[in-house]
């Protein structure tokens, strides 16, 4: 299911066997798609067509010169809400990637360097955690702390950290098993030195690509959460909430139920394409088989 961090494509395995020209095309299409959303989100800080609380537009008005996307069921400008939704989507993605990335990286490295019994225990726990969809974890966290953007980011970030931790652990172990690392260890390099000099530079490209994919999955997870009514309500709503609010009137005013979905797809595809592109840029000499 698209909302699950656990079902991410296996970065280690999915090779992008395309020609150089098509590779850069992929990256550029991705950058343009993400750029559109990013610019929209940045614009929302300095300008909005209407105040998100302005209900003067009339209920469910069709698109017009004054309201390009029409209004919602309370008469609020839909375009304004969609623009704010872009900001929220990026906030959720960035927030949970930072949270999940930091925790996951630390946990993964700790596990890679730990004693065998601790490592085994940690990876068993991660195995089980990863099997639980982000959405389920998020539902529980939101039930505990109330529906807000913060609790959604917290929940999605936490669920993501398990995935990142497991990836980091595998990659770090692979690096640590290399001959020259063993040599460095024997010659007395301590683990902080190993991490900074050898492990991080080696695993960094793969982790970044993975985090980019996680970004898209986080956005989808938050949208699902909002759709279930566990997100923050309009007017400062995520695309999932807007869609949920508008689905009852899909036959009367279809834009509210269609536009948020299109924007979600644009953002997530964009991020995925950027991830694919980065993978090739970050690892030009990638092995033919993993």
């Amino acid at each position, binding site marked *: 299911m698209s909302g699950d961090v656990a079902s991410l494509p296996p970065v280690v395995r999915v090779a992008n066997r395309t020609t150089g020209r098509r590779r850069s095309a992929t990256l550029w299409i991705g950058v343009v798609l993400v750029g559109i959303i990013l610019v929209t989100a940045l614009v929302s800080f300095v300008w909005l067509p209407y105040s998100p609380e302005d209900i003067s537009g009339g209920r469910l008005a069709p698109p017009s010169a004054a309201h390009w996307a029409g209004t919602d069921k*309370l008469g609020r400008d839909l375009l304004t809400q969609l623009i704010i939704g872009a900001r929220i989507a990026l906030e959720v993605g960035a927030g949970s990637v930072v949270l999940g990335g930091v925790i996951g990286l630390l946990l993964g490295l700790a596990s890679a360097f730990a004693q065998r019994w601790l490592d085994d225990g940690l990876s068993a726990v991660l195995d089980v955690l990863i099997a639980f969809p982000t959405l389920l974890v998020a539902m529980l966290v939101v039930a505990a702390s109330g529906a807000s953007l913060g609790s959604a980011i917290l929940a999605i970030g936490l669920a993501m950290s398990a995935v990142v931790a497991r990836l980091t652990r595998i990659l770090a172990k692979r690096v640590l098993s290399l001959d020259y690392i063993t040599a460095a260890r024997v010659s007395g390099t301590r683990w902080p030195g190993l991490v900074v000099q050898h492990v991080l530079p080696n695993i960094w490209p793969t982790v970044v690509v993975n985090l980019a994919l996680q970004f898209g999955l986080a956005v989808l997870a938050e949208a699902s959460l909002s759709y279930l009514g566990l997100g923050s309500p309009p007017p400062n709503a995520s695309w999932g909430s807007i869609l949920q609010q508008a689905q*009852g009137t899909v036959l009367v005013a279809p834009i509210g139920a269609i536009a948020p979905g299109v924007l979600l797809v644009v953002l997530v595809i964009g991020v995925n394409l950027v991830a694919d592109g980065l993978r090739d840029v970050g690892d030009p000499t990638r092995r033919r088989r993993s």
Partner: protein
Amino acid sequence: MKKKLGLATGVALVAALALAACSGTSTSPTKPVSATINIGSVYEPQNLDNTAGGGQGVTEALNGNVYEGLFRLTDSGKVQNLLASSYTKSSDGLTYTFTLRSGVTFHSGDKLTSKDVKYSIDKVTAADSQSARKSSLTVIKSIDTPDDATVVVHLSSRSISLPYNLSYVWIIDHSAKNLKTSEDGTGPYELGTWKHGSSLSLDRSSKYWGTPAKNAGVVFHYYSDATALNNALLTNAVDVVTSEQSPDALTQFTGNASYKVTDGKSTTKLLLAFNDKVAPFDKVEVRKAITSAIDNKKLLASIWGKYGTLIGSMVPPTDPWYENLTKVNPYDVTLAKKELAEAGYAKGFTFTLDTPNYDPHPAAAQIIKSDLAKVGITVKINIITPDTWYSKVYQAHDFEATMQEHVNDRDVVFYGNPDFYWGYDNPKVTAWVKEAEEAQTTAGQTALLKKVNTQIADDAASDWLYLYPQIVVASSKLSGYPVNGLNSQFYAYDIVKK
């Protein structure tokens, strides 16, 4: 290789099944059996016991359909004898003698006796009862059962609303068990199956003492959101929707000859409730100023379009003591500013509005916020879950202002309780509420409760934003369904489908 072949065959088999599923779906949705009425609702009972927190759904599905009281509250708000064939009241008003209707049996086959009535009333007033009517029945001192057909109720003080309050007491077989998941009532329907999370079916009882139900049975279908509910009606999966939750989808039905939309009378009021005990809401002028600063008409139109009613106080038009009090605190920004200045808040103030997280509260809160900004008052909207509302606002009284729907009729009497969550404490009102209950005549009761209603409006005890509409949408083939949502009951026995 053998294993893989096995696997392949398995896959092919399931594929065939899936194909069958797809081909089976090209026919039209199943038509419901004509004799059974399918009712759509968003209020699934939490359990089947109205003294154990069954919620508003259990009233909707079972009240009058499966369970009956000594009296019945009709769809138009009148109290009629039901299982009581007659009653007498002593001259001091402290003793009521009820004669039970003869020939009534429970669905289990047991005969209705006075013992069952005593058991049922005791169940509502018991220590562990969650009934919303418990407090109004505490005036009952003792119950005697001189013979099988007679119940004598002794009161500690006069209670003119006793028959009305008893209409909420379901008469249950005293030997019944597991009332949360099964039933033993006297009504025209017996419980079929309750599929938690989905539906509840009622079958016409062959043992019913009165006029049998006009349909063979009803199925209540439950949906967690209004969209799915309306879709069910649009696709004929249900015949009638007990109450529409928003006007947005109604355009799909109003212009369509296959459906009938009824705008009935509701008892559900949306309140902006102040905590009258904390500053600045302890000042009458501040409450009046806020009430005048909010454009209730615009608020109602934003949320309900052309539906709904403004009432200006707590009493809805279906209560006998209703008066139109919308003029007491009119929408008037200048007046509001003046009142604020008198109270010493000329420059306004800031307060937190605890807002339940479900519709229409967050939207209404936004509108209130923008209206109050015009008189210099800053509103901080704090979105909370119903659970938090209960513990923070209702139990701990830890709030400045909040919003809540109050669904019951005749609930103006809550203002006579100084310990209620909104903390309104006017000794005059408390006394009037008590006197009204002890009144000799209905006229006396009505006069006193009118005074209560006017006084709380004068004091702006809360801001009664609007009265909800009660909109029933049904297939035009359907007739005989109730159109007023009094206390969310929904008598199903007269419904017929052409």
